[in-house]
C-alpha cells in the first residue's frame, strides 16, 4: 500500500492525542511555565540555549508572568492549529509546522533551564511538527522516513554511550543508579513497599545488572531499523515496555517519545509515485 494523505491525517491525530495527554500531565503536575513561576534559571552547555539567551529571554520571562502564560498557551495552541490545518489540508501548514518546531524548541530551552525537566523529553515536540509541513505525499514520505532514522539514532546512540563510557561493564551500575535516583525516598520511607523493592534490587547487584543489560540491549536492537523495516512493530513493543519500566523503576517520564512511534507504524507503507508528488 502507498503512503497517502489519509495516513498523514491519522498520524496528525495520533500526534495530537499524544501531545494533549502530555500537556494534561504537565498541567496536572504543575509543570507548565506559569505554574512553576520560576524565579531563577541555570544555563547549560547548549549552543541553542545560549543563542536564545543573547536576547536575555530567560530574565525577561522570569520577571514577566503574563509572558509565561502566553508561552504556555502557544505551546498548546500551535500543535492544535497545526494538526487542524494538516487534517483540513490548509496551505498554511508549512509555515505553521516550522513555527511550531521553532517555538517548541524555545519553550523546551526555557522550561529545562528553569526546572528539573530535561530537554531530551521535549525532542519529539521539537522535531515531529516538521513531518506535517508538507501537503505533498512524497515529501511527507521522506520526512517521515528521515524522522524514523532520527528516532532510531536516538535510541541506538543511548546504547553506544553506555558501551563507550564503560558503564555497561560496571556490574554495580544499576544498583548505584537506583540508590542515587531514589535517595530521598530511601531516607524518608525506608520501609515502604517501593523502598523495599528498590533495596532488594540494590542489594542483589546481579539482578539489577541484568535489568541494566536488558535496557541497553533494548536500545541497541534499534540498530536493526537502519537495515530493515520488517521489525518496526516489534521495536514499538520494545519501546513501550522500555518507557513503562523507566517510569516505574526510575520515575522518569519519556512518554513524549511515544509520538515518534507513528514513524515506525507507517514506515512500511510504500513511497507514493513521483507523479503524485508533482500533481
Amino acid at each position: 500500500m502507498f503512503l497517502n494523505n489519509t495516513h498523514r491525517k491519522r498520524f496528525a491525530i495520533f500526534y495530537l492525542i499524544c501531545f494533549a495527554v502530555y500537556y494534561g500531565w504537565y498541567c496536572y503536575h504543575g509543570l507548565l511555565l506559569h505554574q512553576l513561576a520560576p524565579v531563577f534559571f541555570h544555563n547549560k552547555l547548549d549552543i541553542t540555549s545560549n543563542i536564545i539567551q543573547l536576547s536575555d529571554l530567560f530574565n525577561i520571562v522570569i520577571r514577566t508572568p503574563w509572558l509565561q502564560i502566553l508561552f504556555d498557551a502557544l505551546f498548546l495552541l500551535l500543535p492544535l492549529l497545526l494538526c487542524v490545518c494538516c487534517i483540513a489540508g490548509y496551505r498554511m501548514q508549512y509555515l505553521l509546522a516550522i513555527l511550531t518546531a521553532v517555538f517548541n524548541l524555545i519553550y523546551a530551552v526555557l522550561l529545562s533551564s528553569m526546572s528539573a525537566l530535561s530537554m531530551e523529553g521535549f525532542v519529539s515536540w521539537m522535531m515531529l511538527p516538521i513531518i506535517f509541513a508538507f501537503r505533498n505525499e512524497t515529501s511527507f514520505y521522506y520526512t517521515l522516513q528521515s524522522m524514523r532514522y532520527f528516532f532510531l539514532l536516538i535510541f541506538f546512540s543511548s546504547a553506544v554511550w553506555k558501551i563507550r563510557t564503560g558503564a555497561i561493564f560496571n556490574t554495580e551500575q544499576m544498583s548505584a543508579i537506583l540508590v542515587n535516583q531514589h535517595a530521598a525516598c530511601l531516607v524518608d520511607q525506608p520501609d515502604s513497599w517501593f523502598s523495599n523493592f528498590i533495596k532488594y534490587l540494590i542489594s542483589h547487584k546481579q539482578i539489577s545488572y541484568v535489568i541494566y543489560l536488558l535496557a541497553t540491549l533494548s536500545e541497541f536492537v534499534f540498530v536493526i531499523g537502519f537495515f530493515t523495516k520488517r521489525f518496526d512493530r516489534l521495536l514499538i513493543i520494545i519501546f513501550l515496555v522500555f518507557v513503562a519500566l523507566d517510569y516505574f523503576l526510575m520515575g522518569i517520564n519519556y512518554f513524549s517519545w511515544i509520538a515518534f512511534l507513528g514513524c515506525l507504524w507507517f514506515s512500511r507503507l510504500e513511497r507514493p509515485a513521483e507523479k503524485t508528488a508533482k500533481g
Partner: protein
Amino acid sequence: MFLKQLYRHSKTACFILIAFLLAFIYIFFKWGIVAAPVLQYGMFSAPVHLADTQQVYMISVNNKPVDCAALSFSDRDILQVSLADYEKQGAVNESVYNTMHKFLGFTGLMDKNKYVNHISDAGFTQWYKAKLEKITGASVDSLSVYKQYFLWRQNSLQPVGTPIKLAFIVP
C-alpha cells in the same frame, strides 16, 4: 538506498538530513557541548558506584520533616532539585558564560549580566515556601533545610558527617 532516493527527490532535503546526522555524530564524539535539538542521549551512561556519596535535602516545615517519599516523582523533583539547582546556579551560569564566550562572543551580544539571576535568598525562600504550601497543602510558618550526605551500608542509606544547614533558606 534511502539517501539516494531522497537526493533524487530533493537535494536540499538530502543536504539538511546529512548535515543533521553529521552534527549528531560530531556531538556524540565531541562529548561536551550540545546544540538542541541535536543532543546527547547518554542518560545513565556515566559509571557510578555504590560507594558514591549521596546528597539529600532534609526539609522541615513547622518543625516536622517533609516526607518526600509520599510525593509524586515530579513534586519530589521540584522540592529536591530546585534546592540543588539554586545552590549551584551562580557557579554554573558563570562557567557556562566563560565557555560559551568562545563561541558566541563574536556577536557582541554576550553580556555577563544576562547570565546572572537577579534574585535574593529571601526571594528564593519565599518562592520555595509557596511551592511547599502548594505541594503539601499546609501553610508554612517555619522552614529549615539541611543538606545531609549518605552512604549505602548494610542494605540502607546511612548518614555520614553532620547535616549542613542551608544558609540561603532565610527564616
